C-alpha cells in the first residue's frame, strides 16, 4: 500500500524586490509517497528550486512563503511544516529531511574537515558521542564509495574531486536516514560518467533507507532514469503531473510536448528540433489566464482569461490545459 509522506497544497512563494514582487511559485501542489522519487523539471526560472527551498523552509528575506500547506508525515505523525517554529523546523531539517545542492564546492564548508561536517548532523540529531559519530561517518563514506574513508575524514573539501565532493554531500544528507531527500540539480556540474555514478548511488541509498526523493533538474534524461512521478513546471506553476512513463511517452500539455521534442536524443536524429517561440513571461507581472498561452500554438480564447489549473486526465495524471484537458 502506498503510504503518503509529503503533501504540498497550493504553495506560494514570492520575493519582494525593489523592481516589484517576483511570483516565483504560484500555487504548487503535489503528493509524494514513501520510497518514491518525484522529478521536478522545467527550465531556468520556472520555480523548481524555490519550490525545493520552500519545502525545506530555507527561503530567506526578501523572499517569503505567502500561502500553502506542507503536510509531512514524520516520526511524530502529520505536521504542517509551515506551522513549525524555526527551532522545531531545525529538528526536522537535516534529520528527517535533507538536501543536496548543485555545487558541492559552495555547499561544503571549505575550512572544516569532511569528517567534522559529516559528524555534525549525527551529533546534533542523533546525540552521538565523538567516537560513535566518527565510526558512523567512516561507514557512511565507505558506503558512498570514498576509498580509504578513515584516513580521509581529516581532509578538507578542496582535496576531493567534484564527483567525490558530491559523494560527501550525499553521505551528509543520508547521515540521519532521512525520510525525504531533496536533490537540487545534483549532477548538473558533473561529467556524464560521474553523473551516472551519483545517480546510481542515490538510487541504491533510496532503496536501502526507504527514503523518498525529490529530484530537481532541467535534464529530462536524469528524470527518466530515476523518477516514478514527474511534475513539469512553467513560470511558477505545475503544468503537468503524472507517472514518468506517461509524461515521457504520452505528454499532454503543449509545453511538455514541446520540451520533449526539443531534446536531441541518442538514437533518433530528426531533421529539426521542436522549438518554442517567444520567451517565458516575466515573473514580476501578474499572470492572467494560462501562463504558457502567449507561446502556445493550440491556444483558444478561454486561455487568455482563465488559468486552467491542474485537472485530471487519466489515473494519477493531471494537466493544466483547457485544450488538452478536454480532448
Amino acid at each position: 500500500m502506498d503510504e503518503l509522506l509529503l503533501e504540498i497544497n497550493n504553495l506560494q512563494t514570492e520575493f519582494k524586490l525593489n523592481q516589484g514582487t517576483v511570483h516565483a511559485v504560484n500555487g504548487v501542489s503535489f503528493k509524494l509517497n514513501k520510497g518514491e522519487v518525484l522529478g521536478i523539471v522545467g527550465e531556468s526560472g520556472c520555480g523548481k528550486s524555490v519550490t525545493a527551498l520552500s519545502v525545506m523552509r530555507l527561503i530567506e528575506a526578501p523572499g517569503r512563503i505567502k500561502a500553502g500547506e506542507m503536510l509531512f508525515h514524520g516520526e511524530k505523525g502529520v505536521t504542517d511544516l509551515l506551522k513549525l517554529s524555526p527551532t522545531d523546523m531545525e529538528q526536522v531539517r537535516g534529520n528527517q529531511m535533507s538536501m543536496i545542492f548543485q555545487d558541492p564546492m559552495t555547499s561544503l564548508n571549505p575550512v572544516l574537515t569532511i569528517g567534522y561536517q559529516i559528524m555534525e548532523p549525527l551529533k546534533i540529531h542523533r546525540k552521538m558521542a565523538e567516537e560513535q559519530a566518527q565510526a558512523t561517518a567512516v561507514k557512511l563514506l565507505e558506503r558512498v564509495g570514498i576509498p580509504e574513508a578513515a584516513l580521509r575524514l581529516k581532509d578538507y573539501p578542496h582535496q576531493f574531486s567534484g564527483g567525490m565532493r558530491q559523494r560527501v554531500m550525499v553521505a551528509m544528507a543520508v547521515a540521519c536516514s532521512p525520510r525525504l531527500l531533496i536533490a537540487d540539480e545534483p549532477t548538473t556540474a558533473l561529467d556524464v560518467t560521474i553523473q551516472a555514478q551519483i545517480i546510481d548511488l542515490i538510487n541504491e541509498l533510496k532503496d536501502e533507507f526507504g527514503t523518498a526523493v525529490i529530484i530537481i533538474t532541467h535534464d529530462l534524461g536524469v528524470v527518466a532514469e530515476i523518477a516514478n512521478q514527474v511534475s513539469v513546471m512553467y513560470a511558477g506553476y505545475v503544468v503537468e503531473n503524472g507517472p514518468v512513463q506517461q509524461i515521457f511517452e504520452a505528454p499532454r500539455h503543449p509545453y511538455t510536448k514541446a520540451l520533449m521534442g526539443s531534446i536531441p536524443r541518442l538514437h533518433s536524429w530528426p531533421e529539426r528540433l521542436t522549438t518554442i517561440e517567444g520567451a517565458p513571461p516575466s515573473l514580476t507581472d501578474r499572470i492572467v489566464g494560462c501562463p504558457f498561452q502567449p507561446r502556445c500554438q493550440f491556444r483558444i480564447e478561454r486561455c487568455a482569461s482563465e488559468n486552467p489549473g491542474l485537472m485530471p486526465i487519466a489515473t494519477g495524471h493531471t494537466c493544466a490545459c483547457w485544450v488538452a484537458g478536454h480532448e
Partner: protein
Amino acid sequence: MPETLLQTVDLVKSFPIRRGFFSQHHFRLVAVDRVNLTIRQGETLGLVGESGCGKSTLGLTIMQLYEPTSGSVIFDGQELTSMGGGEMQKKRRQMQMIFQDPLAALDPRMTVEEILREPMDIHRVGTVTERGTEVTRLLKVTGMPSDAALRFPTEFSGGQQQRIGIARALALQPKLLICDEPVSALDVSVQAQILNLLRDLQDQFGLTYLFISHNIAVTGFMSQRIGVMYLGQMVEIGPSQVIVRESRHPYTNALLKAVPEPEPKRKRLKRSLLGDVPSPIDRPSGCPFHPRCPIAEDRCQVEAPAMREIGRTMPWRVI
C-alpha cells in the same frame, strides 16, 4: 568527395607546469596529444569528451590562439603553424569561433551594431555604408529583431546573446566555424533554437563546423562524424551513426552508456565506469584509459595502442 578544409597532423599542445614555488622540476601538461583529424568542406565534425579531455584546447590550438607545441594544422591547403602574424590574421577571417558563455564573449560596453561591425572594421571589409547594411543582414539571418542593433548585449536573453555571438562570427564570411560548447549554458528549448539555427546557416552558407560539446546526443544531432577524446588523445573517430550504434572503444561505450536518455523504458545499464578522470599531469602509462577500462589487459599498462582503421572509415585506438 568534397575536398578537405582542415587537417591536423600529430598536433600537440603542452603547457609547462611548475609545482611549488622553488621547485626545480618542470612538468608538462600535455593537453592535446598527437591529434590527427580531417574535416571536409561543408561537413560537421563533432568532438566529445569529459571536462579536461583537451577538446577546447584543441579548438584553440587549431585557431592558432594557442601556439602548437608540435605537429601541423593545414587549413584550406596552407600550413598555419609556420605563418607569420600578419598572414595569420588574414587567414583567421576564414575561421571563426563561437564560445560557451556568450555574455563573457561580448563586450558589455559595445552596442550590438558595434560588436558586429568591429571584425569588418579591423579587416577593412567594404565601405562604411556597406558595413551598415551587412549588420542588418547579419541580424536578419540569425533571427534577431532589427532594432537590436542599438541595444547592449546585457539587454538580451542567453539565447539571443548566443545569436549575437554567431552573427559576429559570420561577419567576415568564414569557411570554418569552431563552436565550443555553444549551447551548454542554455535551456533545452533555447538550445533547440540555436542548434536549428546553426544547421540552417550551414545549409545557407556552406559552412564547415568543428562542433565541440560534452553532450554526445547534441553532437550526434549536429555532426556527420564524431571524434571522442580522452586525456588529450583522440580515442575513436568515425561516422556519427557508427559511433553511437556500434562504437568499439571501451571509453566511447562507457560514455554512451552513461548518458541518461529521456526514455523511461530504456534504463541505463548500471555501473558502467568507475573512478574519476586521471589528472593530465600524472598521466597513466600505456593506454591512458587502462585504470578505468573494464577490459584492460596487462599489455595496456605498458604499451600505448596506436590508432588503426577498422571497418570502412573508422580509425580506432585500442589494443
